[in-house]
């Protein structure tokens, strides 16, 4: 009786993969092609841990936490809590400091609560680092990889400031918070923009963080839909406040950070890497300050990573590219679940 019931219930359960056999064959072929691309360039494939004592300080990334079961080795809370990596960035930079000059990794990364057409909490990232490369040299290499994977024969390159000048006749670095709020006047975004503005005026959120929030809202609503429609669009020189782990340019106003947009998809994010341990520590502390403002948990600084920077990181550039999105673009798929064996809801 019970087994009949389960047999019936299981018939209703969708256990089948989201991606077709054809898609998964092409996915495998693309992965093989990417590995050949890096082999030819003498870039070494590495595997760093998925599970780590530390998570990134980025206030807008939520890691998945793993609690080790009771054991003698895991008596203290610190020894019990681990994080699934949101990207292999810190570990790969430790490898660079240890003397590996050109490395790449294709690994699973995890970000909690990121679910949508282009997001799955567990996803595959392609991340690579090139010693001696500046931002432009790495952009050129990304463009070559896209040519190989997506058969694109051209691309555009534009700065963040140029985009805001074209779309809003505005210098994003100089614009006041109020000016940005006034630009968010359309019905669909006004209330959201006001919330950010109010958080800043009542002192809950720093002015800089509020400005970034509004700039990102304007960028996503009015600029992103119009760039990279025909050919990949590479946006460079983000405001210093959005530099993340990138070096600043000589003016100190812009981060040497780039993003690749193509067909409404944000495909890759790269940096000419910050190598100064002292500045890195300050940015971590600033992230924690923003986390405090947002009511998010503080992150312990990853001292092993900072020690590696103190030892010395070669001057280098690195980029992280969403593999699942690359496969979506390559095969013209509109939802990430079409290129995964089993998406989060089916896993």
């Amino acid at each position, binding site marked *: 009786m019970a087994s009949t019931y389960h047999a019936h219930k299981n018939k209703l359960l969708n256990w089948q993969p989201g991606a077709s056999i054809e898609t998964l064959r092409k996915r495998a072929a693309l992965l093989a092609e990417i590995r050949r691309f890096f082999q030819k360039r003498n870039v070494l494939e590495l595997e760093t841990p998925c599970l780590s004592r530390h998570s990134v300080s*980025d206030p*807008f990334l939520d890691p998945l936490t793993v609690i080790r079961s009771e054991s003698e080795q895991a008596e203290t809370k610190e020894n019990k809590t681990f994080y699934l990596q949101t990207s292999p960035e810190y570990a790969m930079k430790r490898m660079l400091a240890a003397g590996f000059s050109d490395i790449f990794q294709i690994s699973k990364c995890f970000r909690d*609560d*990121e*679910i*949508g*057409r*282009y*997001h799955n909490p567990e996803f595959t990232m392609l991340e690579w680092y090139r010693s001696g490369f500046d931002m432009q040299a790495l952009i050129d290499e990304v463009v070559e990889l896209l040519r190989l994977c997506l058969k694109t024969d051209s691309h555009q390159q534009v700065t963040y400031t140029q985009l805001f000048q074209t779309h809003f006749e505005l210098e994003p670095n100089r614009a006041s918070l109020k000016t940005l709020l006034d630009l968010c006047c359309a*019905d*669909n*975004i006004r*209330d*959201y923009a006001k*919330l950010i503005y109010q958080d800043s005026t009542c002192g809950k959120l720093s002015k800089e963080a509020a400005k*970034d*929030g509004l700039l*990102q*809202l304007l*960028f*996503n609503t009015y600029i992103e839909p119009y760039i990279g429609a025909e050919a990949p669009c590479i946006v460079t020189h*983000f405001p210093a406040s*959005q530099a*993340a782990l990138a070096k600043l340019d000589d003016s100190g106003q812009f981060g040497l950070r780039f*993003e690749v947009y193509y067909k409404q998809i*944000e495909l890759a*994010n790269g940096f000419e890497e910050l190598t100064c341990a002292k500045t890195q520590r300050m940015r971590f502390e600033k992230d924690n300050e923003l986390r405090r403002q947002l009511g998010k948990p503080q992150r312990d600084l990853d001292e092993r990573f900072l020690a590696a920077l103190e030892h010395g990181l070669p001057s280098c550039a690195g980029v992280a590219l969403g593999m699942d999105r690359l496969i979506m673009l390559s095969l013209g798929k509109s939802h990430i679940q079409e290129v995964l064996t089993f998406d989060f809801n089916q896993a």
Partner: protein
Amino acid sequence: MANFSTNEFKAGLKVMIDGEPCSILENEYVKPGKGQAFNRVRIRKLISGKVLEKTFRSGESVEGADVMDTDLAYLYTDGEFWHFMNNETFEQIAADAKAVGDNAKWLVENDVCTLTLFNGSPIAVTPPNFVELEITETDPGLKGDTAGTGGKPATLSTGAVVRVPLFVQQGEVIKVDTRSGEYVSRAQK
């Protein structure tokens, strides 16, 4: 009523937005490269029927709306209210002109309609997809005409006006698609 977080938003969920019951049509998760995630949500306001887009912080919660659909048979109108009855419990509910709206012209006695109730009161009345109504007035068509051509206007017993083929005559009962307001066929007797 329970609260729903943006990651629980999916098509069909009924929530309160700006003090009005709304139905979620679409929910898109947006995460800027290095910034706070938000959700772009398309909603339909259930009272006005207006469709609009709103942006929410990811993880933000909104209150659920006490909205339910119930199937009731249409009885009659007294001019001010349209009366419906639950065929099982015989309980009656009256809907006002605001709730019935343009759909008044598709209400046929004993037809089972869907009433959308908000806090127990009707805010929308959806007639069946197909209703059968008698033609009370239409010009006589030309003899021998079959389907096709432009047709002619016909007034139905409820006051609704639809275009019908020329061969359909006054006094006949026809089947109409209430979603498009278009003639489907002569009623099967």
